[in-house]
């Protein structure tokens, strides 16, 4: 019997029946304790983000920006700059998805540091969900921007004569993108936690704290890398020759 977080315990004690009816809708049979740790942690992270932005919105002011506004202006300028650099001219159209992905993955990675809570990105399902969302997004956005024929033309490669060679390679590389996104994020978060736990069993308190600091740094950078790769894929998809 695996240990649950206290949040998951609350969800399982109070809300087991709605979860089981949802599972029934999806065709899966009911379980005794249907809420998993990563599901409740994702809900908590989403709730925190919604509350944070709900606090931010009324405090936005053009003449007298406050501290929270300054923080988010830094984040927004950063995301906007990356979008301009990676996607080019229409970059800002795609900030909504990429920025949301960045903030969501960032908060999910960082919430594992709080004792009693766990990063939902430590289970492979959560990065897989983000990667599949990215995969669908960049394909749909690419088809919407340049049309399905021209988008399929990306797969053929530079010279149409090389199509029988290029198409399988391009399809394999496109399928490899969500896989590598998933494993990169999952492995970094999982390894960071495992390394901290292992060192906590071996050494006194100071050294595991160093590894935890590295884990925080790696978590922030992995969120950034996920966002930058999403933008690169979107940029490759919507690229048009002028």
């Amino acid at each position, binding site marked *: 019997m695996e240990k649950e977080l206290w949040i998951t315990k609350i969800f399982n004690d109070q809300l087991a029946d709605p979860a089981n009816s949802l599972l029934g809708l999806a065709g899966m049979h009911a379980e005794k304790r249907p809420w998993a740790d990563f599901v409740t942690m994702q809900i908590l992270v989403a709730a925190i983000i919604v509350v944070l932005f709900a606090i931010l919105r009324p405090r936005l002011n053009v003449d007298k920006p406050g501290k929270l506004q300054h923080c988010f202006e830094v984040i927004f300028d950063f995301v906007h700059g990356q979008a301009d650099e990676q996607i080019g001219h229409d970059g800002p159209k795609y900030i909504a998805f990429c920025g949301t992905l960045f903030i969501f993955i960032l908060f999910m990675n960082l919430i594992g540091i709080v004792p009693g809570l766990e990063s939902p990105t430590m289970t492979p399902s959560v990065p897989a969900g983000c990667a599949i969302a990215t995969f669908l997004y960049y394909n749909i956005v690419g088809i919407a921007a340049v049309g399905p024929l021209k988008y399929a033309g990306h797969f053929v490669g530079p010279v149409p004569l090389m199509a029988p060679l290029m198409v399988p390679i391009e399809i394999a590389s496109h399928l490899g993108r969500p896989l590598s996104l998933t*494993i*990169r994020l*999952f*492995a*970094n978060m*999982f*390894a960071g936690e495992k390394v901290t736990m292992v060192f906590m069993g071996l050494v006194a308190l100071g050294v595991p704290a160093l590894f935890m600091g590295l884990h925080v740094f790696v978590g922030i*950078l*992995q969120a950034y*890398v996920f966002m930058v790769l999403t933008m690169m894929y979107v940029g490759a998809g919507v690229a048009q020759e002028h």
Partner: protein
Amino acid sequence: MTKKLFLLLALMFLASSILCAAPGTPGNPTDNGHWVPISAGFSMAIASGLCGLAQSKAIASSVEGMARNPGAAGAIRLALILGLIFIESLSLYTLVIVFAKVS
């Protein structure tokens, strides 16, 4: 020429011990999965070692670039961190396989 020939013959003689690993021979260690933890250790060590070499190349060239052109240090530092992240994740792919295979 003779020395090389004898060296080759000696290596082939030693390599014949791989016949012990054929499935079904008594005492074959791979049948119970005994080699899984050992090969997991070796593969992780190789992955980490090669990751260390690759990251050292990245750091060395970026530090040299920052020394030659201190004005571009910011951009070089950004590219360095990004490159280190990608190289690190390559060795973590091996860790994922280790955790998947070692029960």
